[in-house]
């Protein structure tokens, strides 16, 4: 999914940050929330905690010490709580606590069974047979069967559901596209079969290694038919889920409270609940005043919290980087970017190392390739384009556009509705100007317009956004962003050799061969410079109150609240 880099920047500037930094969606619809939202705040205090939480807390005090408590976090309003519609990280961070699917990711990003007990993959790699766990219940106490899954997946695909991501996550299932692209009359997906109450069979069109990974995304989660049908458009006001928590209270722009689901199949959540404050505010001050338990550290506070004499220093923890790559994209059909040498010159002229250390205080890592470090398929053997001002000047001189008089004006479009477009864009344009004498105009447009223009490929150069992993598979980056036919190939990049490699990789069963295909493709693409890769996410910093135990920061959004507890003793 495309994500708004401003979001990342804002994260450093302080705010939600840890609001689930990763997951991402297969679409670029995400995060239409304006940046204002990110300055989330709290309305803390006992008053906002649902009465239920208070009583439960009392009963728990007598028992296990490692249980109980209410975690207070700053969050933003979710765009939706319907798992089938989720496209953004803010919503996903909540949805994964309330709902679940056949499989899920654990904190180490391994695919683990969730509601499925086990599964078989046929020899041709096309038929997945899932055995469901025994006696699993919805949060209202009713049993979950294989037909619930069939109904849920078909609902996610149905055009009336208007899921922006169904086509991305469910397309592999045989018959799914007929439903998704249909007029609503077809509801049955032939590739989904209920063998018995506990057995579900999914058939996919080709042996795709990343299919299971896609099922960890909320689009494939199970919802309860009666709940959805009776609740109508507003069914998520009182959702019946299968996750470790259930929704207890939600008022838009104010507060969202989740509490323990006692019908959860596994070990019950330790926390009584989590209170997400949605009203915004000055996060750092709120943290200092004990109004929230966790906050990211913004650039403005970095020096202070790193100072060992500051009391906040004790609460400092590092946050694993999310799988995100930020870049400046070139539309290779638009002059002057139709000239490889010109694109290369711009690439060589940017000293990313300097920007990373000085502007972002080391919170980002210069990107020279496409796949983020530690992501499946990441290879150290990829050679990227480093900083080389002499080479940049030389390449510019060799290019068709060496003479500034026959160079079309360059307009860099960045998303945003205020303030500086993005810190790095201003430095980069300054570097281009100083090293190459190439002057650009930075144009800032609203996020929604930006996405629209990007999608229609109307942008000449664009910055300020990035791509975040949807599922841990290199296909999610390289194929989706650079295959000639991909809808997300916003810069019209084409390379037949790369296309061939990417197509082969889709169905290649040998893991090593597959990775090597992706590596070759990545190298080809980097050499063609359709991008100026900027940043990978780097370890960030966060503050977490000493009484919050068992909280793990993860690079992708995974259900994680159930192991957390508050211990103020």
């Amino acid at each position: 999914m495309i994500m708004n880099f401003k979001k990342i920047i804002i994260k450093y500037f302080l705010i939600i940050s840890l609001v689930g930094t990763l997951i991402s969606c297969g679409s670029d619809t995400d995060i239409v929330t304006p940046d204002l939202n990110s300055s989330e705040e709290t309305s803390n205090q006992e008053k906002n905690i649902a009465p239920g939480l208070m009583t439960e807390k009392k009963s728990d005090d007598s028992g296990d010490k490692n249980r109980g408590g209410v975690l207070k976090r700053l969050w933003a309003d979710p765009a939706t709580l319907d798992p089938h519609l989720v496209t953004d990280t803010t919503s996903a961070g909540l949805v994964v606590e309330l709902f679940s699917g056949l499989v899920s990711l654990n904190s180490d990003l391994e695919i683990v069974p969730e509601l499925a007990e086990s599964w078989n993959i046929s020899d041709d790699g096309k038929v997945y047979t899932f055995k469901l766990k025994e006696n699993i219940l919805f949060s209202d106490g009713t049993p979950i069967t294989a037909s619930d899954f069939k109904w849920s997946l078909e609902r996610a695909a149905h055009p009336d559901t208007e899921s922006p991501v169904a086509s991305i996550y469910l397309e592999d299932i045989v018959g799914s596209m007929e439903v998704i692209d249909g007029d609503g009359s077809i509801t049955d997906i032939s590739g989904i079969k209920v063998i018995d109450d506990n057995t579900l069979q999914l058939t996919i069109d080709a042996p795709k290694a990343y299919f299971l990974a896609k099922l960890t995304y909320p689009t494939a989660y199970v919802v309860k038919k009666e709940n959805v049908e009776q609740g109508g458009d507003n069914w998520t006001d009182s959702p019946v889920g299968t996750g470790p928590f259930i929704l207890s209270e939600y008022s838009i722009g104010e507060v969202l409270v989740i509490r323990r689901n006692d019908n959860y199949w596994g070990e019950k959540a330790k926390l009584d609940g989590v209170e997400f404050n949605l009203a915004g505010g000055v996060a750092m001050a709120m943290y200092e005043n004990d109004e929230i338990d966790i906050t990211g550290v913004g650039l403005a506070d970095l020096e202070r919290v790193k100072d060992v004499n500051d009391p906040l220093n004790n609460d400092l923890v590092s946050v694993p980087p999310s799988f995100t790559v930020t870049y400046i994209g070139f539309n290779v059909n638009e002059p002057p970017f139709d000239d490889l040498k010109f694109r290369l010159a711009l690439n060589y002229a940017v000293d990313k190392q300097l920007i990373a250390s000085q502007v972002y205080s080391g919170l980002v890592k210069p990107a020279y390739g496409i796949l983020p470090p530690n992501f499946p398929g990441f290879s150290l053997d990829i050679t990227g384009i480093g900083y080389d001002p002499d080479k940049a000047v030389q390449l510019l001189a060799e290019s068709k556009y060496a003479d500034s008089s026959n160079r079309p004006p360059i307009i860099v479009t960045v998303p945003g509705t205020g303030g500086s477009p993005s810190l790095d864009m201003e430095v980069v344009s300054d570097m281009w100007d100083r090293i190459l004498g190439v002057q650009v105009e930075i144009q800032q447009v609203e996020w929604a317009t930006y996405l629209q223009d990007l999608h229609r490929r109307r942008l000449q150069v664009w910055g300020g956004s990035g791509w975040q992993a949807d599922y841990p598979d290199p296909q999610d980056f390289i194929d989706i962003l650079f295959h000639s036919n991909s809808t997300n190939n916003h810069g019209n990049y084409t390379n037949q050799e790369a296309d061939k490699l990417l197509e082969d990789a889709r169905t290649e069963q040998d893991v090593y061969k597959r990775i090597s295909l992706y590596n070759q493709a990545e190298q080809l693409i980097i050499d063609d410079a359709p991008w100026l890769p900027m940043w990978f996410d780097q370890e960030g910093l966060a503050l977490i109150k000493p009484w919050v135990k068992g909280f793990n920061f993860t690079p992708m959004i995974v259900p994680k609240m159930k192991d957390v507890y508050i211990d103020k003793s």
Partner: protein
Amino acid sequence: MFYYILRRIIWTPILLLIISLIVFIMGLYGPGDPVEVQLGQNYSEERAERIREAKGLNDPLYIQYFRYIGNALKGDFGESYKYPSKKVSELLKPKLVVSAKLFLASIFITILLGIPLGFYSALRQGSWIDPSVVALTLVLYAMPVFLIAPVLIIVFSLELGWFPVSGWGGFFDKRIILPAITIGIPGVAVLTRIMRASTLDVLGNEFVRTARAKGLTDLVVNYRHVARNALIPVVTILGFSIAGMLGGALIVELIFGIPGVGRFALDSIFSRDYPVIMALTLIGAISLIVANLIVDIFYVILDPRIRY
């Protein structure tokens, strides 16, 4: 006078109708396609068309407009684009309540500080108190909320620990105090100055001198005669200073994390949630018109010399 009031009352609904038309047109010409706002990028034209049809976006404009007005009269402003299936009125109601309370608190603070300060400083004209109050009001009036808010937070929340940094607990919750002061400060400055000027005006009047000559004590004169008469023009100004406080309120809600309508309005503008924007503008206009009407009528009653 009666004729004037009557004319104003008749004019008000016409005014509202025109305003609603303007708001409606602005919604039409705003950037972005409502369907796209709702569906995101990956949708088929066919599906978009169905939604347009279902939402009545294919009807002639005047029908859309009258439908909108008809529903708005019933308090129904349609469904939000950003939170599909949520009624705008339901979304806005709690936020309007919060903002109204906060605003009321600010006005309360404005009056509580501004009127005595202006009155007192006028009575002390000639001493050092008067010019320092005047200077203070000027300094405060020009002070941007971007500075007032963090300074208040640092001093009263982080250092002294008297108030929480943010949040909302209703009218009788101490969390309302800092944001209300922040919003109210420019108002205090304005009100102090008006009250001061008006008091000075009254002090120079014949009847005050007569009252004093009659041997009434300063206290009685000041409070029974001067203060009461000085308040008349202040009432009308209050309306203006309230309108002027709105801009500050937006930012204050942002910084203090108040779940009010200000933040929501900005969110809606940036995410192009037109039904919400239209509703907000209409509600804002209605309250402003009604407030002005009340002030005007009040003014006419208070001071019959005013002719229109």
